[in-house]
């Protein structure tokens, strides 16, 4: 049988939410999606981590983790008992730009479970014992993360490429030193100062049937009254390139990152950079993966990933290579990201990248949780809901030269930061031979 023709995709646009503001200022975006029997919701609170008091970084995370440990209406473990018995789940996390509290429940139980979501956001008791326990658990988690090469590498890379002094250069959930200092008073003060309806946006998606989601939200969140002052977002800058080798005696692989501080969705080069990064290290047969995995067998996979924040972002190639070939792989990767001369991105490559990035949007937004996640990411970045659609049009307008030049500007091979987590005894020599001025670090155990 011959290869079948592919008919062009049906036009798809990101649906416009119903957007309404409650009397207390809470902005509510609702997507009614028939057939989506789980309701997915995220409360985005405009709470940059730069708002954390300097000595107690990580307080946002401890607050997140204590939200479901008891509320005024459901003290202690009765809150989780009640929440779970309704088939609901609550989660909370922080990025550098916002806190997000997520909630999921079968549609049939939305009305009975939504008040619990509101209690967790509005009136967590934040008891001393819970705060102290979560501080201990976070300290243990820091040790777990440090032991994990990919996590250790990601954290070191962030620390190296984001200008020192910016909150975004340090871990979201705080360091051992700052977390150990967090007290119950800190956590309560943080909640008091920043959790308020004017700085919050609630996104909900799913099959609401005949019920009126706005009314349900108003019934639960309408009583939320607290005036909080907005905190400015920091606009970090990148730092000078470095080469860090974090020693892991006997490690069989080297976790490698190569990249630098990048751009965010508001930069005019963003569509071109996304496409260029896909050509170099996004698709399965990207320039990097085709050679380093499919030809050389050096790695299970290599990606060049863009991680935008509200202001700036991270741009990094990431892969794990077996120790014996890691230095050779880094050298080859540096060549593979060059787009000068006859290595410029081609129209055919660009076309596949456009097809992928435009085409996957409906797949990603097919479920309630996919829609909620996408919308919450936009809210967090301060972008409108039609960004997905205007971005799709922008992607289609990019020409190959623009993608080439975005990559050339933002991934200049000689100006990138290298972070390797691996066996320094085996790696330091061959990496230095490639001209990297290595700083070798050894973690204390």
């Amino acid at each position: 049988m011959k290869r079948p023709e592919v008919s062009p995709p049906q036009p798809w646009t990101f649906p416009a939410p119903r957007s309404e503001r409650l009397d207390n200022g809470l902005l509510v975006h609702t997507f009614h999606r028939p057939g989506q029997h789980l309701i997915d919701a995220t409360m985005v609170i405009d709470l940059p981590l730069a708002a954390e008091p300097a000595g107690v970084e990580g307080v946002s995370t401890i607050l997140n983790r204590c939200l479901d440990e008891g509320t005024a209406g459901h003290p202690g473990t009765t809150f989780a008992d009640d929440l779970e018995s309704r088939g609901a789940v609550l989660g909370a996390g922080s990025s550098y730009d916002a806190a997000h509290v997520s909630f999921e429940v079968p549609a049939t139980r939305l009305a009975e479970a939504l008040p619990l979501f509101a209690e967790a956001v509005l009136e967590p008791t934040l008891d001393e014992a819970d705060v102290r326990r979560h501080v201990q658990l976070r300290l243990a988690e820091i040790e777990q993360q440090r032991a994990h090469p990919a996590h250790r590498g990601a954290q070191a890379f962030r620390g190296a490429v984001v200008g020192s002094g910016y909150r975004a250069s340090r871990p979201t959930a705080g360091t051992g030193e700052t977390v150990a200092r967090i007290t119950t008073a800190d956590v309560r003060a943080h909640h008091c100062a920043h959790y308020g309806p004017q700085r919050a946006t609630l996104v909900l998606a799913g099959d609401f049937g005949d019920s009126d989601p706005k009314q349900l939200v108003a019934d639960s969140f309408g009583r939320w009254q607290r005036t909080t002052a907005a905190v400015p977002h920091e606009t970090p800058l990148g730092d000078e390139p470095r080469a860090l080798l974090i020693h892991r005696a006997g490690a069989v692989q080297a976790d490698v990152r190569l990249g630098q501080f990048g751009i965010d969705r508001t930069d005019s080069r963003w569509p071109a950079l996304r496409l260029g990064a896909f050509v170099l290290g996004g698709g399965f047969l990207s320039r990097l993966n085709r050679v380093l995995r499919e030809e050389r067998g050096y790695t299970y996979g290599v990606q060049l990933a863009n991680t935008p924040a509200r202001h700036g972002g991270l741009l990094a190639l990431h892969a794990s290579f077996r120790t014996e070939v890691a230095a050779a792989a880094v050298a080859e990767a540096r060549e593979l990201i060059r787009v000068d001369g006859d290595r410029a991105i081609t129209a055919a490559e660009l076309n596949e990248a456009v097809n992928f990035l435009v085409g996957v949007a409906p797949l990603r937004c097919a479920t309630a949780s996919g829609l909620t996640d996408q919308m919450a990411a936009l809210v967090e970045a301060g972008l409108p809901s039609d960004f997905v659609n205007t971005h799709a049009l922008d992607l289609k307008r990019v020409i190959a030269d623009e993608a080439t030049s975005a990559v050339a500007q933002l991934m200049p091979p000689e100006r990138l930061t290298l972070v390797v987590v691996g066996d320094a005894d085996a790696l330091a020599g061959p990496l230095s031979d490639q001209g990297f001025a290595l700083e070798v670090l050894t973690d204390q155990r």
Partner: protein
Amino acid sequence: MAHMPAVVRYSLHESTLDNGLRVIINPDDTVPVVAVNLWYDVGSRDESPGRTGLAHLFEHLMFEGSAQTSAGEHLAAIQGVGGSANATTWFDRTNYFETVPTGALDLALWLEAERLGTLDLTQHNLDNQRDVVMEEKRQRYDNVPYGDVLIHLVELAFPVEHPYGHPTIGSMDDLASATLADAQRFFSTHYAPNNAVLTLVGDVRPDDGFRRVARAFGQLPKAPTAVRAPAVPLPPLTGTPRRRVSAAVPADAVYLIWRLPTRDTPAFDAVEVALAVLGDGQTSRLHRRLVRTDLIAEGAGASATGLIGGTSIGFANARALPGATTERLEAAIVEEVERFIAEGPTEAEVDRVKAQYEREWLGELARFDTRADLFSCYATLHGDPDAVNRRLDEVRALSVDDIGRAAAALLAPENRAVLEYRRATA
């Protein structure tokens, strides 16, 4: 008991091609996308001694080209139309899947049929993907703390010669010695339309879908496939087998392991709920006892892994906070298991677990790709994709007594094996 809302039932359309390919279609036009999901009834349980890891290595080779496609083109072609594709290997099966815009359904079907009909097995591809798989093993198992836990667990739970006695990733030695002849034999033994189930979920009408599938797969011949020995359930573990691993882990940890019955039998379902009461989420008994009350663990949990071949496995585990020993963690878990067996669960605990099961189940059904995978799964392992529509009712029907009895019969501490991780001192 808390009220249990009615759930959705998905309409299923079934047909079997002359070559034995079983086709299932669940039309859903809420988004212009189709999920294609193909299960081959072969997993690591079908590997022979000395050839572990072959099922998974073979899954990699399935992406390395066919008569009309070059190496890697399968994935690139799907991505090039705005779709996604992948495959996974497990003890009981190998699944391949694509999610594509409606207009690319024929492409996805053709790519799957191409590689089933004309896979390009070469020494070069084998050597390359063997290296890739070894890097996968290093990255996911060997170079991360506790990455090898599954290897130890199956080795403790099963005799080495048992179909489940080795992990799907296989051993480095066996991977190194796999030959092209092994791969060819594996292909001819297990890859045939009559050893597969193909499910479509999404924007496709059943008659149209069957026609397209027949056009792509209809000419492929039926083939004799391996006959598996009937699965014989293993007796409970005895003598408390114990393994102590000294490793570069940040905290000591302990795992308790039990043998359980075949997946989705009433006894398995009941003991799975029992393990969830013990160890799923922050309301569970182990979390409350070890993390919240005794403050000896940074995490504690319990769960079951259902397998079709006569014996499944159940686990309970905890990771120590500084100052706590694995002995103390193990003693606390054993005490909680004993108390559970003596008292049984409460109605409230069982209702919570059922409510959480419902949410997780609806979450699996919300996505086309995971919904399609469930239909393929139940058709392949249980013979009936419509079992997906009955699953919640089966779980809801379990009583507190069923669950208490299953725990008493299956989770007795004397029938456990134990895995301990001790932090190696540098």
